[in-house]
Structures are given as structure tokens and as C-alpha cells.
């Protein structure tokens, strides 16, 4: 099953490579990984999307907890949570496609953030599945470039990950 794992770790050189190294060394899969500092500058927050059986996910959580730089780990799938990802897509937008492309962006609540006479760059946020759906709705030949941030996640309500 797909899991979103959030963790807080010491904001130190090399901390990211410890996590990435753990996943490759133990053969866990990483669908996406994002990391950035938090409001507490000594901490970074990382979100990892991975897949595995319950046993594998349990091992991943334990192994992450075991890393000396990791302060806290939370499997967001254990409760209600919100997932968001940002995608930028550059598409062909010439002639009759132009109007159609604008309409598609609207349907998916995307914003056109850069315009040339032949292209649009569309910004889209949402859960990964929504971004996938948008790409599927487009004709593959009009897509020039995509860039995705990977998922970020946060617990709903008073589910809070902090130290």
C-alpha cells in the first residue's frame, strides 16, 4: 500500500543522505521525497511517499526512527491527513488548442502563470492523484515539460508532528 511518512530531523549536513541511503540500502522504494527547513531552523521536515506491505512499512518506520539524526517519525496514513503536491506543466498552446487548454486548467483549478504565443505554463496543486488525472486528461503530444514537487502531507485537526 502507498504510505506518506513525515519526519522531523536535525537540520544537519548529511541527514538527507542518511535517509536516502537507508532506502536504497534496504531496497525500500521511494515514490517521492521532499525536504525543507521548518519554522524551527534546527529541524528539517521530510515527506516520503513509499509503497510496501504492512511489514515493510513497519520496518521502514523502525529503521527511520533508528537513524540518530531523526527526531520523530509519523506515518500519516495511520489517521486523517491532507496531501498536497505542486506541479508545473508547460504545454503547447497555439491556435485552437489555446482556448481548450485554458478550459482544462480551469476545470482542474490550475492557474496559468506564464504565457508565450505558443505555450502556457500551468500551476496545479492537489493530491498526487489529481495531478495524475490532469496529465491524463491532456493529449500527451501537447505536454512539453512537467515538474512536480513530490507530495507534502499534514495530519488533520489536532494531529500535529512537532517536538
Amino acid at each position, binding site marked *: 500500500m502507498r504510505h506518506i511518512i513525515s519526519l522531523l530531523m536535525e537540520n544537519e549536513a548529511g541527514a538527507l543522505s*542518511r535517509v536516502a*541511503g537507508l532506502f536504497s540500502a534496504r531496497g525500500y522504494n521511494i515514490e517521492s521525497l521532499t525536504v525543507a527547513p521548518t519554522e524551527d531552523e534546527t529541524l528539517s521536515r521530510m515527506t516520503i511517499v513509499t509503497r510496501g506491505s504492512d*511489514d515493510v512499512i513497519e*520496518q521502514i518506520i*523502525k529503521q527511520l526512527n*533508528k537513524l*540518530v539524526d531523526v*527526531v520523530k517519525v509519523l506515518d500519516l496514513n495511520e489517521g486523517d491527513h491532507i496531501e498536497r503536491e505542486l506541479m508545473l506543466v508547460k504545454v503547447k498552446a497555439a491556435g485552437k488548442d489555446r482556448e481548450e487548454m485554458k478550459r482544462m486548467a480551469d476545470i482542474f483549478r490550475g492557474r496559468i502563470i506564464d504565457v508565450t504565443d505558443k505555450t502556457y505554463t500551468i500551476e496545479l496543486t492537489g493530491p498526487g492523484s489529481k495531478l495524475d488525472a490532469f496529465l491524463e486528461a491532456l493529449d500527451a503530444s501537447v505536454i512539453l515539460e512537467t515538474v512536480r514537487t513530490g507530495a507534502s502531507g499534514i495530519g488533520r485537526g489536532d494531529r500535529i508532528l512537532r*517536538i
Partner: protein
Amino acid sequence: MELTGAEIVVRCLADEGVDFVFGYPGGAVLNIYDEIFKQDKFKHVLVRHEQAAVHAADGYARSTGRVGVALVTSGPGATNAVTGIATAYMDSIPMVILTGQAPVPAIGLDSFQEVDTVGITRPCVKHNFLVKDIADLAATIKKAFYIAASGRPGPVLVDIPKDVTIYKHAYEYPKEVSLRSYNPVTKGHPGQIKKAVQLLLSAKRPMIYAGGGVVLSDASKQLIEFVKLLGAPCTNTLMGLGAYPANDPQFLGMPGMHGTYEANMAMQHCDVLIGIGARFDDRVIGNPDHFFQDEKKIIHVDIDPASISKRVKVDVPIVGGVSDVLDEMIKILKASKERPDEKAMKSWWSQVELWRSRECLKFNNSSEIIKPQYVVQTLHQVTNGEAYVTSDVGQHQMWAAQYYGFNKPRHWINSGGLGTMGFGLPSAMGVQLAHPDAQVACITGEASIQMCIQELSTCKQYHMPVKIINLNNRYLGMVRQWQEFFYGNRYAESYMDALPDFVKLAEAYGHVGMKIEKPSDVEPALKEAFSPKLKERLVFMDFITDQTENVYPMVPNGKGLSEMILL
């Protein structure tokens, strides 16, 4: 007063109470060596290869329970140390490894003798640090010792750039450290502990499977009391040998690939199994599906949550230190009126005795040719079973484990997890320095010993009277055995021609050499080697043994525990 980084390193080691540092100098650590020259708080031991520095520190740590310390230079010094570090990591041995590094401004520029030591060692250390600022130096070394020795122990590496050893800074060695991200648990969950004791008391066929964690937490005494209270059979993994005395009737020997018939049958057919500081290794459990064909409940005590339910699903997990958890269990057992079901235990033991009567370790001794098992048995007699025994990797290692009979913990020193050939001699050096008056034997093979043979020179320099028992079968015996069993007798590259004359070799290094070719000479040779006359000397005993001997029992790879090949 301000000290240089090099002075700080040396002061930290002294303040940590380190008595031996095993190392090898080079450009990046010259400042540290200059400070070592000026001090007398600890002794530096100059090895002949950095791998041996780490193995020696490891042998010191395994035999004392204290943190072993190694110091090597940057680049090739660090890469040579990697095998030693990985060896310690796999067996959870507390160590601190200090490495030199290119100066901070030179890092990343492919500078002279620069390697990414932190990157290279990351997967085989408990943790590592690169100290870029002298202000962090003392605190980092303190953290390294703390992390290495606490929780599940392991090697911690501190990489120190050369310029950091030159700068000056005020020195204060922190008395304590606490890390918000690292808080190992030692006390087990009381509810889980109660549940475990209940389950054990209700068992009809209980089995106790204890491993290296018992040795690491110095909980041998508790283990013995616990086993006695339950009246159950007990097995020790290769890493746990000595945790429970081999001469006690409740001891069934080692489990696993080369475990005894009785230990493996009892592991397979018990109804409640408690794993204590043992990690359900693939060499011990065999094929996990086969292991569960006979239903059983499993209790697992381990300080590392990640060890629990990793390879085998556990019914009652207990995260905690062996000694704390056993203390609690013993308390509950003593307070409880309940006792194990007497009738069930009687019939369980008669089953176990039936398995034991198979005498799986019996071998056909010979008056013509030296049997390796016989050498190990005789070594036990000659040393009263009290020697520290280190070993290398191969058949000789298994025979040492099966036939020496360890009655005390920390006396059996071997590389179990990584299986590192070359470990035996250097680790014996660390053991001998830690226990200068003790008998230290290194049971090795003619192939393994050649992987760190250069250390004979270190032994000479520091007067280490290690007794080397070379079980010379002219083969990579363990490899040959697999080729005989599973590769149609095709002995691909497992025969070693052109072996050195080990007697002359030992003599060339300034030691005593003996070649023993007849079974009747085995005992006299061992007696002489361990006699007062040779007490101060390293003796290299080259036993020419039966080339065709195999290690039995054997659970073939992928087979179940009860599917042993027996002699």
C-alpha cells in the same frame, strides 16, 4: 587556556578513560600523533594494516565490554579500516573510530588522500560525524562514545579534518550528553513482560534462544537464573556462546546452520520460544516458512525495535535491555506461585534427551590423521576451558564454536554477522592487551590467517603471547564443503597451492613455530605451547589436518531447521 584540536582529541580520549588506541599514522593525523607522543595516559598500539587496528580495538571491546578505539589517517587509512568497521557494525560492537581528513577548505577538491569517509562508512556505522568546527570537537567525541556504548551498541566514526587539529579552542569535556533524537529504551513494558511470563509458564514445550545481546548487556547471570527458574532448555547463537555455560545440562549447544541436532529440533518443535538479544538471523532460523510449519508462539526481547518482527513475526515483542527485562521477569517468576506444568516439562525433556542421544557432534577420530575437532577438544582440556578464543571464518570457526565449550561470556570472539576472514589474529591482539595474563588462543585456517598475517610483527613489538592454532587443511575448507555438497565436487579455486612454511614464517617474525602432523603430537604440542616456558611467547601451531573433513550438522541453505545433514 586554549588547546589545539590535536591536544583536544588526546585529552578527550584520556578523559574518557581510554587505555589503548590502535592505529596507524599518516599526514592527516600527524598533529594528533605528535600529541600522543607527548602524553602517557593511554598506550598507542601500532598495527601493520588499518583493518587490523579496527579488529584489535574490536577484540578489546568484545572481551571487556568497553568501547574500543582506533585511529587512522585519511584516504587509504580510512578505506583500509572499512572492513573492520563493517565487521563491528554487523555484530553490534561499541567502538569509536577516529579518521583524519583533508583540511576543511580542501574538502571536495579531490585533494591529496581525500575520500568521502562519512559517505563511504555511512551504511556500516551506527553513526558518523565530520567535525568542521573545532568548537564542536570535544562534544562530538563525547557523543561518539555515548552513542557507541548505549542502546544497541555499534561503531561510531569521527572524521577530523587536518586544519581542525591545528586551530585552538577552550577545552571542556562534557560530563554528559543528551540527544533529543536518540533515546534508547532499556526498561521493558511491564504489561508485555507479564504477558511473556504468563505465556512461558503455560508452555508445554518452552525453549530459550539467547544471543549476542545477552553478552553485550552483561546479563549472563540473569540468563542463568531465568533458565533455572523455568527449567527449560537453552540454546546460544554463535554470538551468544558463553552467555549460558556450555557444561550445564540445560544447554543444548548452538542452533542454526551448524547447530546441534537437539538445539535445532527444540527450536523447531517448541510451543513457546523466547528470543533474548538474538536477531532471528537467516543462519539460525533457516527457511522461515518451514520454521512456522510447527506452530509456536514467539516472545522477543531486544533493545532495537527494528530487530523485532524483521524476519519472523513475533507474538509478544518486548523492547528493552536484556538485563533490565530479565531482572523483571525473574522478579515476577519468583513472586508467582505458578510453576511450569511438571508433567509436560518431563515429557518435553525426555524428547529433548532423545534428540541429544543422537550425539550429533560425535566424529570419527583417527590415529593416522589429525581431526580438527580433536584439536579443539584438546585445546579445551589443555586450557581448562578458560582461554579467550578468537577465530577467523570458515570450518575451523564452526569447529571452535561446536567443540570448545564456552562456559563464560566474552571469551568467544568471532565475526558472526559479516564473517570476516582476517579477524582472528588482530582481534586476539586486542584481547591479549586487555587481559595480559590470560591465555588467548586464535583458532584459524591457513587461508584466513594469511589475510592479516602481517600482524605477527605487531605481536612481536608489543610482546603479545597469542597462541595461534592453525587448522591447516590446505583448502578454503568451508568453500570446499559447499562445493562438495552442492556443486558436484567441482572445487573451483578453493585449493590453495604454494602455502608458506608457517614455522619458518613465525620464526622470521621472531616467534615460535611448530608443525604438528600426527594425532599423538596434538596434546603434547598444545601443552608445550601453553606451558610456563612459552608463556611470554607467541606460538604458531600449524596443525596439518584431514583435508576432507566437513562440518556437521548442516542445514542446507533454504532448508528448514529440522532438515539437517548429519554425519
